[in-house]
């Protein structure tokens, strides 16, 4: 069937096994031991069938999710949100308001689950941490010269340490896309593992900024590179570059984490961010997760959605389902 296995997406069974063999023979340590071997491994990854990936994402996006399944999906999506504010104009007051919303998204309905985390700039981590202490909502901080990542490794380390010291449970780092596109994979690898060390016990999410990577092959390579370097999560975008998260890109990343688990036994999470604004979009991503990586990823521990305006749309849809009347944005907080 054109070398495609319906259940497993665009990677064929043949290449998946091939990959396993390649890795088993080479051993992970060897792959990452030098620039040359890393380069050989990443460039040796099977290339992405672009048409196939887009068609598969489009097919999965056409699923109709209704009634109880929709209710389940809405609550799950809310619990997966990294409620984000990454603006130059952010104030402690705005962050505190967002933290309140994170814990109790709909004040009129206590049955709404809380979101997974709040995502802010490093200088606002302490504000968020104070507001969220004991609530179960995590604090995520972007770091390493977000969003461009164009700064020295020392600064990136210091940025990360400062965020963790201020109380961040999770760090969202950006990779050096310039180095990646120039083929200096070892440098990117080194940066990610250094930042991972600086994180200590904090979770590391690695932002690939897929909108700048130009090809799906590069997305696959960057995903593997990040996972090999120790990422706990791979994240699509900063939200500052268009296009941000798209379904095909997320599909490719989900395939990568699935294959990585097969091979290494380590599970890595995925976080699409940017451009996901409606309930419909969010549900499309959940379908994609379930059909690509599997139900094991359908949890806030393994799948997150970086968003801000999405939450209100989810709440409005939720209210529509409970009250039977269409909800209006006048009755939800602005953010």
């Amino acid at each position, binding site marked *: 069937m054109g070398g495609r296995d319906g259940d497993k997406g665009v990677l064929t069974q043949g290449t998946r096994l091939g990959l396993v063999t390649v890795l088993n023979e080479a051993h992970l340590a060897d792959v990452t031991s030098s620039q040359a071997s890393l380069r050989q491994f990443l460039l040796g990854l099977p290339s992405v069938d672009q048409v196939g990936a887009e068609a598969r994402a489009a097919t999965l996006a056409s699923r109709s999710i209704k009634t109880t399944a929709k209710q389940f999906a809405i609550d799950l999506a809310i619990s997966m949100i990294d409620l984000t504010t990454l603006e130059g104009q952010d104030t402690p007051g705005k962050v505190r308001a967002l933290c309140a919303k994170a814990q109790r998204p709909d004040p009129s309905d206590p049955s709404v689950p809380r979101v997974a985390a709040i995502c802010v700039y490093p200088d606002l981590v302490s504000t968020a941490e104070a507001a969220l202490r004991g609530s179960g909502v995590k604090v995520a901080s972007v770091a390493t010269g977000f969003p461009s990542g164009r700064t020295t490794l020392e600064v990136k380390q210091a940025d990360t340490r400062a965020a963790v010291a201020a109380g961040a449970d999770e760090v969202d780092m950006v990779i050096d896309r310039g180095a990646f596109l120039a083929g200096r994979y070892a440098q990117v690898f080194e940066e990610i593992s250094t930042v991972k060390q600086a994180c200590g016990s904090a979770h590391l999410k690695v932002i690939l900024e897929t909108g700048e990577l130009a090809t799906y092959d590069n997305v696959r390579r960057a995903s593997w590179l990040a996972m090999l370097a120790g990422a706990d999560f791979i994240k699509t975008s900063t939200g500052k570059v268009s296009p941000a998260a798209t379904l095909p890109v997320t599909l490719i990343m989900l395939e990568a984490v699935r294959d990585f688990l097969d091979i290494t036994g380590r599970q890595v999470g995925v976080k699409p961010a940017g451009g996901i604004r409606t309930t419909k979009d969010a549900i499309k991503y959940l379908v994609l997760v379930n059909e690509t990586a599997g139900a094991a990823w359908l949890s806030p521990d393994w799948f997150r959605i970086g968003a801000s305006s999405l939450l209100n749309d989810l709440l409005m849809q939720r209210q529509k389902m409970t009250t039977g009347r*269409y909800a209006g*944005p006048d009755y939800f907080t602005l953010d």
Partner: protein
Amino acid sequence: MSERLAVKKTYKLYIGGKFPRSESGRSYQVTDTKGRFLANAAHASRKDARDAVVAARKAFAGWSRATAYNRGQVLYRVAEVMEGRRAQFVDEVAAGEGLSRGKAEKAVDESIDRWVWYAGWTDKIAQVVGSSNPVAGPYFDFSVPEPTGVVAVLAPQRSSLLGLVSVLAPVLVSGNTAVVASSYERPLPAITLGEVLATSDVPGGVVNILTGRMGDTAPWLAAHMDVNAVDLAGAAGDDEHARELELAAAENLKRVVRAPADEPDWTAEPGLDRITSFLETKTVWHPVGI
């Protein structure tokens, strides 16, 4: 020469400045008063109503913020385009309402004149219903009317053009945006008005027109939390239905223009009631300068 095949029209909805098919995929046959086929019209569903409200809300900021003068010019332009479509309106009104050609012409002329009359009110209504209030202190105190927001308009069932214009134009004058549920049996003038609006300067989404059964869309519009007011003209004579709609509208305190016991004579002088029904008064205290 072979005989020409008839072109049977299948109309769509008018939402957000576009003409989408109904989400339901359904349509129904529109006939004249003697039961002869006129055209197919779309059966709007509740999802079309929802989409229309989203479009109307999106258009509200631009339309309400446009200067009164500009809104007036745009509405005059609508009247001009209506005049250009006069013959088509006459045909549709005559067929749909079973009027003689002369009476239909009169109804269309009155409709266009009414539109012009309302267009003139855009930059006058604030002077008539606004005021400068006397206060015991060193303040200017004035009250200005502002548009209510998104208005759901149930168009009259019998008067397919004059009735429609008489309920739609006053909503637009002050800067509201509208979602119109047209007459079920006589939707063609509303559809043509949609085509007129699309080709005049009215921004997309300011007027959205849903054809089909009122029972399919009206309850959803009346209950919708993002609709600010509802005109129940189209529910005239159906007390039970009107009552349910009023109850649904009460949830978010919508302004409601109640359904009359029977459809009124639309040729009568309209007055300002329908404009002022969809206004909010903003009162400002302003310190007198030093």
